[in-house]
């Protein structure tokens, strides 16, 4: 099985991808409609919460954090696999990343934007949000640089802006193609503007190569640091169940895991909606599935390490929290996380499921459900069963408003992502050409070698 057919004409690549900007299948509009509805619902919830106060989230005094923080981590986590595909696999010269990294990177960008929204949704005085920005002012007041939340803000800002730039730089040659092929109109103007006058000259390509490589090198440690810092929000605190040394790598593994699962979901959707069957091929899907399986096992291992280290330590309070997770109010969700995160991915071990699209679609959604539960199970149980017994509260349950906003975030993400895929080429045309070209060269070489052998 080959990742892509080598006899695919370059002109056809242009035509196929450009077609995705014009006429997707009807399903596209259905998805867009539902995404818009979900987002609209969330806007309503947020307006209500903004007007009334955070109490409508149904959080209370010991349980000050709830679904918003859990979902924030979920979205930050999802963003990491875009970087994995675009940067790490780029350094490793894995050609199969080429048709799929563009949408993965868009996923990174938009899930970061969604995560950013949850910061806004979470804080009690949104209208004073700018206090957390380090802007010079004549009162000499600065934010607290010791707070992991501020590191978060800095890390997310760096990650988001770098990812957007990386996405944009990688797209310049494609924007030039779009500029050259698009009929006159607002889109042509947009592409002309964004292509920056790219003509594929040797000077442009030379600098492009170095730039792309350099930013890829920066993005890898950046992505690792971003989720390590999110893990620090918890690991740097004193609370039982949070103050865990292995949290940063655990979070990074979880991030890559949910991101890969999301890539599978989006891969399947885009492949159908934009008729990308020739580019997003099953052998590529198989490779992602195997990658996801490996990461799932890493995550399972780190999970086990965390539990074991709590279990064998003599930290009674942390142990109580762990027991509480397994047997208390949250037990169904905790076991759900274990099932979705560690058992369901075993499906990927079977060859016949590795390219079975309906199965993969369902499994990838389940994996992400598991990963969302994981984040919730990190945040909530510690509040319900912390150091101070008087404040234990196992009854708290998020309100409809909170669930609504979580639900709406999926709408917001889908909306941004689908609009992006319709406006910008979601398969990298020039890199697919490179992939085809490399394959042709490879075939030629092996043919010559064969002839030599005869």
């Amino acid at each position, binding site marked *: 099985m080959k990742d892509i057919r080598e006899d695919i004409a370059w002109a056809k690549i242009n035509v196929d991808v450009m077609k995705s900007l014009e006429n997707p299948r009807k399903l596209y509009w259905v998805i867009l409609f539902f995404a818009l509805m979900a987002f609209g619902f969330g806007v309503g919830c947020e307006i209500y919460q903004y007007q*009334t*106060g*955070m*109490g409508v989230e*149904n*959080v*209370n*005094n*010991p*349980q*000050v*954090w709830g679904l918003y923080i859990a979902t924030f981590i979920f979205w930050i986590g999802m963003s990491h696999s875009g970087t994995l595909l675009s940067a790490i696999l780029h350094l490793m010269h894995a050609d199969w990343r080429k048709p799929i990294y563009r949408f993965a990177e868009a996923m990174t960008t938009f899930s970061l934007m969604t995560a950013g929204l949850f910061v806004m949704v*979470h*804080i*009690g*005085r*949104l209208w*004073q*949000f700018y*206090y*957390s920005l380090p802007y010079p002012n004549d009162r000499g*007041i*600065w*934010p*607290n640089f*010791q*707070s*992991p*939340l*501020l590191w978060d*803000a800095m890390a997310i800002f760096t990650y988001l802006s770098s990812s957007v730039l990386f996405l944009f730089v990688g797209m310049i040659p494609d924007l030039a193609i779009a500029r050259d092929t698009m009929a006159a109109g607002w889109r042509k103007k947009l592409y002309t503007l964004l292509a920056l006058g790219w003509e594929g000259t040797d000077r442009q390509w030379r600098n492009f190569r170095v730039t792309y490589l350099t930013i890829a090198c920066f993005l890898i440690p950046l992505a690792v640091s971003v989720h390590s810092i999110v893990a620090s*929000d918890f690991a*740097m*605190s*004193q*609370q039982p169940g949070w103050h865990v040394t292995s949290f940063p790598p655990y979070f990074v593994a979880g991030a890559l895991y949910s991101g890969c699962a999301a890539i599978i979901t989006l891969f399947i959707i885009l492949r159908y909606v934009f008729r990308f069957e020739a580019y997003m091929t099953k052998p590529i899907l198989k490779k992602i599935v195997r990658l996801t399986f490996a990461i799932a096992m890493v995550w399972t291992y780190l999970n086990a390490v965390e539990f074991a280290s709590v279990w064998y330590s003599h930290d009674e309070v942390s142990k109580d929290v762990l027991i509480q997770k397994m047997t208390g109010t949250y037990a169904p969700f905790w076991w759900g996380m274990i099932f979705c995160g560690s058992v369901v991915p075993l499906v990927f071990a079977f060859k016949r499921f590795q390219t079975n699209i309906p199965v993969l679609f369902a499994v990838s959604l389940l994996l992400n459900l598991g990963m969302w539960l994981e984040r919730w199970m990190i945040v909530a149980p510690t*509040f319900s069963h*912390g*150091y*101070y017994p*008087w*404040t234990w*509260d196992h009854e*708290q349950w998020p309100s409809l408003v909170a669930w609504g906003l979580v639900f709406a975030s999926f709408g917001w993400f889908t909306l941004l992502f689908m609009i992006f895929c319709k406006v910008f080429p979601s398969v990298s045309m020039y890199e697919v050409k490179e992939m085809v070209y490399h394959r042709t060269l490879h075939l030629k070489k092996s043919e010559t070698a064969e002839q030599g052998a005869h």
Partner: protein
Amino acid sequence: MSVSNLLENWSQVRHEHPVNDKPHDPYKWAMAIDLDACTGCNACSVACYAENNIPVVGKERFQHGQQMHWLRVERYWEEDSREFPDQGFQFLPMMCQQCEAAPCETVCPVAATNHTADGLNSQIYNRCIGSRYCSANCPFKVRYFNWYDYPTDEMVWPAEMTQQMNPDVSVRSKGVMEKCTFCVQRLSAAKVVAKGEGRIVREGEVQTACQQSCPTGAISFGNLVNPESRVHKQWAAQQVVLDADKQAKDEKEEGPGLRGYRILEELRAYPSVMYLERVRESAV
């Protein structure tokens, strides 16, 4: 400018607190609560509500756990085979422990909660953006968040009730974290008076609302660095040292029979409230 400032004051900016300590001077506000004297009457809590304009949230929100009592009186009892085990329960008044190394301070993204020169853990309402990280990291869970806009809520403060509010204390709008301040408004007023007379605040000159209202005198409050103060004497008598995460007296094989302890001391938050263990038998 800022870099030169950094270099000039290097030793000062690298000073840690309360480790490598320069002791608080001239004030370090602290408390001692004698649980043996506490009858659980809740007068302290009520006084706190009155003094600090704390909203009374109502039954429904209380059930949601959204109550605002800065000072809560906790009840503990042994689950033994008695018919009513909660008979004769013990009380523990719990408020912000004004930790010397407060876990809440370091995590606030906007520096709305800080350590003051007189040893308090301050909360700046105007600066707070409501990330609630401080409460998440508080081991005692003594921080309370304004889940709703209480000052404008007719159920909380009906129109005529606003007349009885304390003018020295601001009311907090929605989205702001608040907690026990050791009645900082009283402390400030006393300090201003004392400063005008060129002296420091004398023992007994200032009382917190809870201390004032306690019928059994279980709560003592004062300046820990003033050797004349009752609080200083109590801490010294109980051999409880402020900047220690393990008290030397507890290391001894034969305990000296002292009652003083601090809650969750091993977390190295260095709380400023010392409790005196109850020795009375239970009421039953």
